[in-house]
């Protein structure tokens, strides 16, 4: 189910975290948005429910859904490679904004 991030010395690495306030948990709609955003970045991006993993590929909708993340869980992000910093902060912002950008309004 999960892969361990490789530890390569010189590759840029970044972390972030955010509380999932989305009611009901990480359901289909937020999971689609999250994986779509992760795919924008060249870096490898992982997601986890605890600070030290186990880590899940944040670009796979199947794996992200399989985490069955409940409402109010803390999500941890880890990215490695080009744009790692931007990736982790963008993902944390998406979760913090309650997946509000895009077509979410009025629902």
């Amino acid at each position, binding site marked *: 189910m999960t892969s361990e991030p490789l530890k390569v010395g010189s590759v840029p690495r970044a972390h972030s975290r955010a*509380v999932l*306030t989305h*009611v*009901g*948990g990480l*359901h*289909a*709609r937020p*999971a*689609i948005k999250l*994986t*779509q955003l992760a795919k924008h970045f060249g870096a490898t991006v992982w997601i986890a429910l605890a600070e030290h993993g186990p880590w899940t*590929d944040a670009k*796979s*909708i*199947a*794996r992200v*859904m*399989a985490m*069955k993340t*409940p*409402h*109010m869980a803390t999500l941890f992000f880890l990215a490695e490679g080009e744009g790692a910093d931007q990736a982790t902060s963008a993902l944390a912002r998406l979760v913090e904004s*309650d997946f509000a950008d895009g*077509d979410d309004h*009025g*629902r």
Partner: protein
Amino acid sequence: MATTMVGDATAVICLRGTVVSPGLARGPLVVLADEHRPPSRKRGNADEESNRLRTAIASASGELAALMDRSADADAQTILAFQVAMLADPVVTEAAFAAIEVGDCAEQAWFAAMDLQIGEYHEAEDLYFRARASDLRDMRDRVLGKLRGTAATAIAPGSIVVAADLPPSRFLEIAWDGGGVALTQGSPNSHVAMLARSRGVPMLIGVERADLHGHTEALIDTDSALLVASPGEALGADFASRRQHAQVARAETERYVNAPAFTANGERVQVLLNVADGSELDRLDPACCDGIGLVRTELMLRDGADLANEEKQYQAYRRILKWAGGRPVTIRTLDAGGDKPIAGYTIGDEANPFLGMRGLRLSLLHPEALATQLRALARAASVGPLKVMVPMVTAPRELDRVRALLEGAVAHLRKLGVECAVPELGMMVEVPAAALAVDLFDADFFSIGSNDLIQYVTASSRDSSSLASLQDPLQPAVLRLIHQVVAHADAQGIPVSLCGDMASDVRCVPALLGVGLRCLSIAPSAVGSVKNAIAHYRGPRPKGEQIA
């Protein structure tokens, strides 16, 4: 058992089911065969089979994307986007391609790989994730159809569709106008049930199986939870008149949902919502209410870790205030105990839990947890008009104690430089001692908890069905007590509302307005019918005289 009667020409068949989306529908009958196992097929070489699967997946994705463009609502788009995203995820498809490499044909490989993943969802504890199994089945079958080159049965607009289960993407392809669905399997939490409810398509699940061969017409009647094949003239005429009445009533009620409530005399009545953890709000337009009258935080905070987590609580309260967009939000402090246990928090072995450690009594036993909740509430009060409500208050000193703790929480936050505000502090009136001596309490507002008030006034347990007749909410003892509380509050200029089940019950609404209530906090599903009942109320606002 299915019942067969002799009708006009064909034998009538009545099959019972469970209603998941109400309504009355009549139309041509379409029975969808349910195919499961893929037919065995002579396989090409691995490359050919891989290509066939790749083409089938691409073609299914294309169809789903086209369907998505045609769907106007967000629910439908999410369901379809989920399938498109899954089909594009190598994690989903790699097992099928691997099976082809070792000798399976595309159909078998796809079916087996999908079945494994469907099984994982099917076994999930969480109902939401369990219901996703049917979305994956939907996706599996669409790709299988492409592999076989079979087109789906064409369905005429307004049909009554009978099937084992109906995939959501299939549901979205059908023009329902006036038709309905009857499933022999199905789940109330499935996407297709949700779509049926949001589009007003009548739907039954768990319908008895019967051979419907030769029947060409059917009706679905959710008043009696029946699918009727070949209903004939007599049944049909009664049905048509009921359908017309239902349509008029529904249109009448719908009109009221997003408008402010006024009585027939033009008096404004506030209508607030009762919510559990806020998830209900996702589907609602804030315009349907004048605010939130009750948030049941014990349904949001499920264990000791949540109770100790101020930040999580703050985020959850903040989200509700944001939704309300400036309308007042009343959040009740933890009302655990009684029939709502929380592990490690409530007392397990009480002989009489409804008369024991519950609500505020339990909160005062755990002052740390209460202080955490009050800090989170004071922080959220800086986001919008938040009010704090305390349950099960019996003696004035209990409320005074909470006020002191709230002041302490605010002082603590200010010392730390954390943004916060002092929320109004009010109480539930649900213990007869509080109702009878309501003038002795220093509350900023009152909210009458009629469910507990009735059980305590009538000394009859809420969980006993044999005592139901003693619990008539309209009996004089209950109404007099409510009237007394409302009269006191009005005289003192203190806001008062009622947030028990009786406020959502249209039979009780005139009586509640009759004792002077002008603020009701109700279930979101009752907004239209309650506002309709308010609009038909002609009585005056009573003075302090005796009721009944």
